[in-house]
């Protein structure tokens, strides 16, 4: 795909929009946590997400697939994400460096990659192995 075509692609702009949402989220969380507890932030954070869920449902005319397995896995996604987010807020609340905590916690694909090998029988690619080495070096440096 040429650069010009890529610039016209919808997915690129959705991806840029995603970045433009997640970076300010971090600053909102950190600034809010100067006053609030991690649980207070989590409470408000969740309420802030409700309009997005309603908009997605409205766009789908409130149709929802009835699939037990899919629903159970989807709920697991929500519950685990919530636990992770609460821990992230607690980490910010310790007063540690925001850039360091944000980059360290963004390394979660390393756990997914390792689990995918064990649970989904996927194979590690050479690129992923190099990625795991970089992640390990980062964690050692953060502990210094």
């Amino acid at each position, binding site marked *: 795909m040429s650069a010009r075509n890529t610039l016209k692609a919808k997915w690129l702009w959705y*991806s840029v929009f995603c970045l433009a949402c997640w970076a300010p989220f971090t600053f909102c969380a950190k*600034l809010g946590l100067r006053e*609030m507890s991690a649980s207070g932030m989590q409470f408000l954070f969740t309420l802030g997400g409700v309009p997005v869920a309603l908009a997605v449902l409205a766009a789908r005319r409130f149709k929802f697939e009835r699939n037990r397995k899919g629903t159970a896995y989807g709920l697991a996604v929500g519950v685990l994400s919530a636990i992770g987010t609460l821990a992230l807020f607690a980490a910010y609340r310790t007063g540690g460096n925001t850039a360091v905590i944000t980059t360290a916690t963004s390394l979660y694909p390393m756990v997914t990659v390792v689990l995918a090998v064990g649970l989904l029988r996927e194979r590690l690619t050479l*690129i992923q192995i190099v990625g795991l080495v970089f992640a390990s070096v980062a964690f050692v440096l953060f502990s210094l």
Partner: protein
Amino acid sequence: MHLPPWYLYAAIVLIAWGVVGIFQKLATNHISAGSTLVLLIVGFLLFEPLVYPGSVLFHYSARALAYGLIGGFLNNLGAWALFAAMESGGKASIVAPFTALYPLVVVLLAPLILHESVTLPQAIGVGCSLVAVVLLSM
């Protein structure tokens, strides 16, 4: 070795969000990305009674309340945009590492907005993390 106080919390984030990656794959084998996003927020709502901070909520400043609500809105809007990017033909092998670069924006803006500085080992660690996150999500 003395670990920084945020280290344990970061480990919980890594494990919880790392396992999410597996369930996300399994969920979208059965239901659409849109339904998964709705269930994601339902999962958060299940915790609301547990994290309700009590009457102190009404004593937070308007600014702090706004940061919390806007933060939640932006994070979930970003998740929706990620799903939309994948559904509109973006290859997961490109979209995932690209969006995983959001910490880079935070690293660049944190000194300006939060007036925080990093030590040299931390800066090298941040660099290694950014390389790792791109490689791991490819």
